[in-house]
C-alpha cells in the first residue's frame, strides 16, 4: 500500500516566534518524511511546536529556516500564490469543526468540492452528497451545523476536507471535542477514507486511545522530533 514517493520531506527545519529579545525558538532542526498513503500520528505535550509544524507543512506559514517539500514543491521562499494553490491539495481538519455556520452540511462539503477544477455544478453537488453518505450523514444533508452533534460536525468537516481530493490530510486533534467512543469512530473513518484515496495523513493528537490507528508514531518534545517506529 505504502509507495516510495514522499508526500512530505522536511530537513533541518527551524522556526521562531517573536522578534528581538522576545524571540523564541519553537522548532529545532526537525527532520520528517511522510510517504504517500502513510498515516502518521504526532504526539507531545502542549506548546512543543506540533501545531507550528502542521501549519508549516500546510503552507499556511512562511518557512524561516530549513527545507520543507510537499509533493516535491519547495516551500522555503514560496510566494503567497504558490502556497495558496498548493493548499488546494492539502485537506485540513481542525480542532473545532470550523464549518461555515450559514451553510448546510451539504453546502459545506460542496465548498470543498468547489475547489476541484473542470467539474460542473451538478457533478460537484453529487460528489458532496456522496462524501456525506460515506461519512454516514446522508440523512442530514440540509441541516445547519447548529443542528448537528459534535461528532456529526466533525464528520462533515472530514467529508469537506476529502471532497477536495487532497493527497495529504492534516488534522489537529480532531477528537478533542468528542467523547471517546465518537472520537475513535471518527478517526477510524478518517483513516479508512484516506486509505481509499491513498492520501497521506499527519494527525496531531493527545488522545492515547487512538494511537493504534497509526502506521507510525512521532513524538515531539521542545521543538525536536523523536521517531518511534511501531
Amino acid at each position, binding site marked *: 500500500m505504502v509507495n516510495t514517493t514522499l508526500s512530505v520531506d522536511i530537513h533541518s527545519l527551524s522556526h521562531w516566534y517573536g522578534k528581538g529579545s522576545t524571540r523564541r525558538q519553537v522548532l529545532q532542526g526537525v527532520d520528517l518524511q511522510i510517504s504517500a498513503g502513510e498515516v502518521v500520528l504526532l504526539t507531545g505535550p502542549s506548546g512543543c511546536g506540533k*501545531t507550528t509544524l*502542521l*501549519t508549516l507543512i*500546510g503552507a*499556511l*506559514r512562511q518557512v524561516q529556516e530549513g527545507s520543507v517539500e510537499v509533493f516535491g514543491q519547495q516551500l522555503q521562499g514560496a510566494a503567497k500564490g504558490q502556497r*495558496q*494553490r*498548493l*493548499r*488546494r*491539495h*492539502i485537506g*485540513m481538519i*481542525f*480542532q*473545532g469543526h*470550523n464549518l*461555515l*455556520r*450559514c*451553510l448546510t452540511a451539504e*453546502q459545506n462539503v*460542496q*465548498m*470543498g468540492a*468547489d*475547489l476541484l477544477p473542470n467539474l*460542473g*455544478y451538478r457533478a460537484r453537488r453529487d460528489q458532496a452528497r456522496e462524501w456525506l453518505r460515506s461519512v454516514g450523514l446522508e440523512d442530514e444533508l440540509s441541516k*445547519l451545523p447548529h443542528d448537528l452533534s459534535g461528532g456529526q460536525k466533525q464528520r462533515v468537516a472530514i467529508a*469537506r*476536507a476529502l471532497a*477536495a481530493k487532497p493527497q495529504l490530510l492534516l488534522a*489537529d486533534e480532531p477528537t478533542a471535542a468528542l467523547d471517546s467512543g465518537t472520537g475513535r469512530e471518527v478517526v477510524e473513518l478518517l483513516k479508512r477514507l484516506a486509505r481509499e484515496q491513498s492520501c497521506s495523513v499527519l494527525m496531531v493528537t493527545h488522545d492515547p486511545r487512538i494511537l493504534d490507528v497509526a502506521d507510525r508514531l512521532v513524538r515531539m518534545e521542545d521543538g525536536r522530533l523523536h521517531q518511534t517506529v511501531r
Partner: protein
Amino acid sequence: MIRAFWQRRRIPLASLMLIRQPVRLIVALAGISFAGILMFMQLGFRDGLFDASVTVHRLLDADIVLISPRSTSSVSMAGFPRRRLVQTMATPEVEGITPVHWNLLLWRNPETLGTRSILALGFEPGQPLFTDSSLAAKANLLTQKGRVLFDEKSRPEFGPVARWFREGKTVESEIAGKRVRVVGLVGLGASFGADGNLLTSSETFLDLIPNIPSGSIEVGLVRLKPGSNPDLVARRLQTRLPDDVTVLTKQGFIDFEQNYWRTSTSIGFIFTLGAAMGFVVGCVIVYQVLYSDVSDHLPEYATLMAMGYKLKSLLGVVVREGLLLAVFGYLPAYAAGQGLYLLVRNATQLPVEMNTDRSLTVFSMILIMCMLSAGLAMRRLADADPAEIF
C-alpha cells in the same frame, strides 16, 4: 453561455450569509432604505422647487424672450420699452410677437378678505401667450375690462375661488382696490416666488397698476418661423438691439429663472446637504453591518483560505454582499419615495415626481455607499490569518 455559467456556479455564499442572519439583514436594509428615502426626498424637494419656479415659463408660446437687463427673477421683473419687441419684427425669421405685463399683485381672499401676493400676467387676449391651445378660447373671456382667469392650482390661501367658480357662483375679489371678476380657471401651478397665478388682459392689468410708464412691458415673447435656429437669432437680435433689453431663448429664460433660485438663495445648498447627510448616514450603517459581518465570520473566512480559496474570491463575497444590500435596500426606498412624492404633491402643489434621472442618481449613490463600505470592511479580511485557526 448560460450553460457555462451553470458549470461555474458555486454556493451563493454572499446571499446565504445575509439570509441566515435575518436580524442583521433587516437592520442593513432598513438603514439603506432610510438613507435612500432621505436622498429621494431631499433631491425631490430641490428639483421640485426648481421645476416649480418655471412652470409658467415652460408654458410660454415663444422661441425667444425679451426681458429687461434689470430683471433678476420672476418676482422682480423690470420694464423695458415695448418698441424693442416691435423692432424684432424687422428680422426675417420672426413670425409673431406678444408683449406681456408681468408683476406681483395683491389679491384679496374673497372669503377671509386677507390679502396675498399673486403673480399676474397681462396680455392682449387675441395674441398667443401659452402653447396650450385650450387657453386661447378662455382668453376671449378677458376682452371685457375687469375680468381675470384664476389658476386653480394656486395655494388655498387665496380662497376657495376654484370651488366657488365650479359651483357656479360669481367669484369677485379686489386687486389694488379695484373689483375683478373670475371668468375662468386655468391650471398652471404654484412656485417659490408666486403662491398663485392669474391671467388678465393688458387693459385690465394697466388699470390695476396705473403708474406703469406707457409703452413699457416686462416680458416680450417672440415666435420664429419653423426651421429657424433660436440660438442664432437670439444672438443676432442681442447685437442689433440697444442694451436696454436682454435677449434670451426660451430655454435661456427658464435657466435665468432657475439660476436665480439656485445661486441667489440657499435652497439648492440646503437640499443637497440634506441628501449628502442621507448618504453619510447610509455609509455608516452599511459599513457597521458589513464590518461586523466580516468580523463575525473571520474564522470561517480563514478556514476557506486554509482550504485554498483565494483572498480575491473572499473579497468577492463581501462585494457581492454589498451589491445585494444595495439592490434590495433600494427597492423599498424607491417604493416609499413614490408614495411620499404623492403626499408632497397633494400637500404643496409642487411638481415633485419620480423621474429616471433622480432614481438613477439615488441608486448610484446607494451603490457607491455600499461599495465604499464593502471596500472599508474588506480591510478586516486582511486580518484573517489561516495559520491562526489551528
